[in-house]
């Protein structure tokens, strides 16, 4: 009964939150609202896939928001100033994220620093680089096929249900969920997060696993940045500020444990949806931003409290 509640808890929470807003304001059930929520969910959700890996390994990555901004700037800059092919620019954007993640991972494993501190540092460093590259102003990327990656679908293509970016997120989520469950590296990530000493005793290359996890989180954040760029048609060095907290909250709401060893990719996506519904619902209700912030913050606290409660129950057994 408890384990089932654990698994379906996030889904239940999503339903409740959605119902609450649907009752207070019918606009949230409109097509436009749905479409907007999909777009935002994808941006948070793609990063949440990578963050789930990090959190399962008992780490944390605070630099995600900055990496998203950097990636969007890199893509826009390469297309706008250097006239590169959108595909190559997109790859470079993701690569930029990957490199940032690799940097995080190497700092954490080689210097044996705490992930929280390292990524707090790179949060600022990467944001600085993004601003430097873009002279602190948004770079317009112009209309290319990339803009369609994450955009509201035109009426004649409604049958696709989701924009390509949405489908890409679902595909990646399924692939990563399978990777975690069915590959050696995936099991090793779980083992490192569950008990690093045991993993080391059993011959798991703990350091390599960690570098991989942060690099992957960087790459997924890079992809999020590409999505953001596609959606806004510009690279904004001051965008996605604080988004990492929304991503972390999504993972924790979705069943990830900050003490490691637990987490679910699909749960994290549901978590991302919950965060989006709250954000959109508050906006549609015409609540001022400060109320939205208080509500979002409260949800994060409640989610972490639930995480603690789950663990207290675990110890009783």
């Amino acid at each position: 009964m408890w384990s089932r509640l654990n698994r379906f808890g996030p889904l239940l929470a999503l339903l409740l939150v959605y119902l609450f807003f649907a009752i207070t304001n019918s606009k949230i059930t409109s097509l436009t609202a749905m479409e907007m929520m999909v777009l935002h969910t994808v941006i948070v959700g793609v990063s949440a896939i990578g963050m789930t890996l990090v959190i399962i390994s008992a780490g944390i990555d605070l630099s995600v928001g900055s990496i998203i901004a950097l990636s969007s700037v890199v893509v826009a800059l390469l297309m706008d100033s250097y006239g590169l092919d959108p595909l190559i620019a997109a790859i470079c954007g993701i690569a930029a994220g990957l490199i940032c993640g690799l940097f995080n991972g190497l700092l954490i494993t080689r210097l044996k620093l705490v992930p929280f501190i390292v990524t707090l540092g790179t949060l600022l460093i990467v944001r600085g680089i993004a601003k430097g590259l873009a002279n602190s102003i948004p770079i317009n990327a112009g209309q290319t096929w990339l803009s369609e990656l994450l955009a509201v679908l035109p009426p004649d293509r409604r049958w696709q249900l989701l924009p390509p970016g949405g489908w890409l997120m679902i595909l990646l989520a399924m692939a990563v969920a399978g990777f975690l469950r069915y590959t050696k590296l995936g099991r090793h990530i779980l083992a490192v997060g569950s008990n690093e000493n045991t993993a080391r005793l059993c011959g798991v290359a703990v350091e390599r696993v960690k570098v991989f996890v942060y690099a992957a989180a960087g790459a997924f954040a890079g992809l999020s940045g590409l999505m953001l760029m596609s959606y806004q048609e510009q690279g904004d060095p001051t965008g996605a500020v604080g988004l990492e907290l929304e991503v972390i909250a999504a993972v924790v709401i979705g069943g990830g444990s900050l003490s490691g060893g637990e987490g679910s990719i699909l749960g994290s996506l549901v978590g991302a949806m919950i965060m989006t519904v709250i954000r959109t619902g508050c906006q549609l209700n015409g609540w001022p931003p400060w109320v939205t912030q208080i509500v979002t913050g409260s949800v994060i606290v409640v989610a972490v409290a639930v995480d603690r409660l789950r663990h207290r129950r675990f110890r009783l057994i």
Partner: protein
Amino acid sequence: MAGPELAADSGDKPRLEMRGICKRFGATIALQDVSFAVKPGEVHALVGENGAGKSTLMKILAGAYKPDKGTMFLDGKPFQPHNSLDARLQGVGMIYQELSLAPHLTVEENMLLGMEPTKLGFVRWQEVRGRAREALKHFDHSRLKPDTRVGTLPLSAQQLVEIGRSLTVGCQVLVFDEPTSSLSQRDIDRLFEVIIGFRNQDLSIVYISHFLEEVQHIADRLTVLRDGYVVGTRDVGTTKTEEIVRMMVGREITDLYPRSVRKRRDAVLEIENLAGLEKPETANLVLHNGEVLGICGLVGAGRTEMLRVIFGLDPVRKGRIKIGLHLGPASPIRRWMQGVGMLSENRKEEGLATNLSLADNVTLSKLRGFGPLKLVLPRKQEAATQKWIDLLDIRCLNPGQRVAEMSGGNQQKAAIARLLQHDADVLLLDEPTRGIDVAAKAKIYQIINEIAAGSESKGRAPKAVLMISSYLPELIGICDRIAVMYRGHLSAAKPVEEIDEHKLMMAATGQEVLV
């Protein structure tokens, strides 16, 4: 009611008295009718093997556990502390093996931590200083300035701060738990001077130690605990070492230990002058296929460290390790590939990832062969694990059950199953039966015997087992040869036929060299 007969025959009234203390944990009896008294101006040692019940007794004294039966008296009045602070305030101070000081605070701040004299909420530093100085007068120690930060002091001086903490509230009883295990000889001598000083000031000292020579040096009387009950109390001056040892180990050996015909074959593990960063200092041994080699020694002697160095979990300072054809130090990853497996002494912290499933834990060291394309299919992991569940009689719901939900004995079997699943040829076992019940122990002895003896009918070659244990009957029961580690030095291994518990205990406590 307050025990007039005891007081009468001992001449003067005991300061601290425990009477008829019983404590059970589930089915395990930790303490059974334990009575024990300390007089003023006496150093009373409490000795016994690991698991004899010393630490449980300590915890009851400190209020961490409540006894199921029995009472305690301090100066004739009932003594029922709620926790160690309460015990200290009532007059019984504990000096633990692991110090509990705040390294960033000063000596005087630490000594009065939690009971700072205040006025209107402000700390009265004058008085703090005064009381700390007063307490420090008990032992004249020049290096100990009240305003130094504790973190900058050597360990021996930190220990004095810990002692001072009890003196500031006027404790009349001080309980030392293995106080010398991490001190150098010079610091030990100095500590003894301090303790003798206390005795002359009419304080009562309870001194818990493994080291017999220390006990004989410092204690007036000693009480021997074994398997949770008091074997006897003796005056140190008139009791021979042999008698104490006999009191500590006197236990019947049953046929708990199966022993198939084992034939020693080729050497698979050789170490020469091996030294770790701190311990071991020198270790030489040769381990052969088809034998169980036991390492005896006290906690802290360097046995675990030696195993960790061999397995690559800790660095090699000097010396040579040869495993099969592989020479030199290697990481745990390599060691597993070379066919070496290690069982950690610390099941919860290191041995097992307790919130993963049994199947994940058993297969973690070798996630190969569980599906096509290098995939790891949980179904196949669980099928492989099921085999060991049946063979080792592991009690669980299914292979997917989380290890945390299983009992200690079954967890230990799971940890051993990993080595078997990996098919390791050299098994390094650190305290393989720690904290598990007799039935599980018997099963594990049987497994170890089968590993070392091999089985021709089942096509299993004899393997090599190197095992650490603090439980002497078990070592003598299942090992072919035994070596003793004493303060970082490993003795030569002797055939078990030439050894008895008495010799082992003498060697482990540094009384005699193992011959």
